[in-house]
């Protein structure tokens, strides 16, 4: 189970400094921040802008362009369900409908108890063993309703 640090300006500055000398440092910085804090905190945006000599608007534009970067930390677990065609061909839509109903969340939402965030993903490269998903970095294959329930139960 991933655990994240609380935002601190000093730690944010440290992460930015660790990557700022790389060519094209924006994505490495954003990944570094999200790995530490579970999201790209709004307070980090002006700091990144200063470090990279960009405007805040430009940094905001970059952060929001990419699906991966979050504005808030996720729940204790992240379930990324594949919604792409290969998994659709084996019933991914039904699995997704079941999970959304069971967790009572829509895509990108976190359950009321903060335990699970549900994210859509367009392909995990597990297209020969679909429907597939990734639960906190653990790949799951040939999912059906019972299998996804069991995985969520183990995680909680």
């Amino acid at each position, binding site marked *: 189970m991933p655990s994240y640090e609380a935002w601190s300006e000093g730690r944010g500055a440290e992460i930015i400094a660790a990557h700022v000398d790389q060519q094209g440092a924006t994505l490495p910085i954003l990944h570094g921040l999200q790995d530490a804090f579970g999201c790209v905190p709004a307070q980090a945006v002006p700091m990144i802008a200063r470090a990279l000599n960009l405007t805040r608007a430009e940094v905001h534009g*970059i952060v929001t362009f990419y699906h991966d970067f979050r504005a808030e930390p996720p729940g204790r677990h992240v379930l990324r369900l594949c919604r792409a065609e*290969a998994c659709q*061909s084996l019933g991914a839509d039904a699995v997704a409908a079941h999970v959304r109903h069971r967790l009572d969340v829509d895509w990108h939402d976190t359950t009321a108890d903060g335990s699970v965030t549900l994210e859509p993903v367009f392909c995990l490269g597990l297209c020969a063993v679909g429907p597939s998903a990734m639960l906190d970095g653990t790949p799951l294959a040939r999912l059906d309703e019972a299998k996804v329930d069991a995985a969520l139960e183990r995680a909680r």
Partner: protein
Amino acid sequence: MTTRVYVPRDAAALALGADAVASLLRQSGDVEIVRTGSRGLFWLEPMVEVATPEGRIAYGPVTVADISGLLDAGMLSGGTHPLRLGRPEELPFLAKQTRLTFARCGIVDPLSLDDYRAHGGLKGLARAKEIGPTATVELVTQSGLRGRGGAGFPTGIKWKSAADAAGARKYIVCNADEGDSGTYADRMLMEGDPFVLIEGMAIAGFAVGATKGYVYTRSEYPHAIATFNTALDIARREGVLGEGFDIEQRVGAGAYICGEETSLLDSLEGKRGQVRAKPPLPVHKGLFGAPTVINNLVSLASVPVILDKGAEFYRDIGMGRSRGTMPIQLAGNLKYAGLFECGFGITLGELVNDIGGGTRTGRPVRAVQVGGPLGAYFPPALFDTPFDYEAFAAKDGLIGHGGVVVFDDTVDMARQARFAMEFCATESCGKCTPCRIGSVRGMEVIDHIVAGDKLEANLELLRDLCHTMKFGSLCALGGFIPYPVMSALEHWPEDFHTIRREAAE
């Protein structure tokens, strides 16, 4: 005597419990566990192989519950058991293949450079150094290798342009942003034989005079990212990289469009991943404005064997203008889904029925999408189409990165067409209007059609919209999304005409 047992660590094998199988086997006496990539026979994963005097003997699919029975049956000396598959290379699915790019995947320890060398690795790079940069570019051109990302541009010509371009610094960029549903060849190679990519990029760097390489890997592949970073450390430590050429891996952030080469370059530069207008071409003005070769991972990973075995050897395989082999990825609703590398020319029907064994659900095949979310849906009536860049283009389709996704007769093709537009709307970079607005309008129009609202007028509007997107978009996302939409409409019109169908009944 210690018995060597091979258990895959490919992400798909892990998803099917390979880690638990490996750790239980490790406790089962005098065994040495080697974690390999996957051979690509996913219905048999986790496929465990045991080294015996007669060669490797495979068992699969092995679950934790099977292990005590397997050990009792003498698995560690190749004993008989219902899960015993025999010698893997004699399994029909593997025996029918021509494994060149994937020759080592599933066989070697992916993080052993000694293993890599023992199985023919680094011979291509040595050959390149022997014949020099110009002859290397010429050899790749002569081999007929074309871009395996889908565009099919001749790799040697691209290299020649970059070699001839003036620039103090040049780059090799590997596109490992394998976002097409139904494709997993890049992932398998990065997890199962990462040194072949390193060698291919080192050859490219030597050939065009580049000093730095970047691999842009999608964030959805955490296992590939980790394995490849470790492989880079090993290659640097052992002197394969470092002197004159080094490689850095960068991780994407969930944007499908970054698989488009110019978006990828903008993303590597730290910007929004938006498509660039061409010209200038990346070979003249690419990453950070410098001459850049940007190739698909499979293209680069095919170069070492071409250098090692020669241009003629490679060129003699294939059909028409599609030379060499293609790692075709059989996916979706198939009984035998997996990686099938063979010469161009095999027909779609052979792939789906003979090799793939028909659907996993046992129902009739209704549609096959080839080439990812931008590829056309093919009905069984077109199963005689040979796997070849030109033959698929002639049928208003594309082979893309080699993904083949099979659907049974429960699929609703109007829904698939709508999904294509929805996917395009979600993933559009927003730079050009046909893609950004057209995809949203496309969803709406398909909804109207399915609702039976002004059917003929809206069908005409959809055709017109697809025409505009095809010819007016800046890149292949907006430009090719009409393929799945129009092929669904052409081959399965009955799925779009709900109201009319109900009225007729």
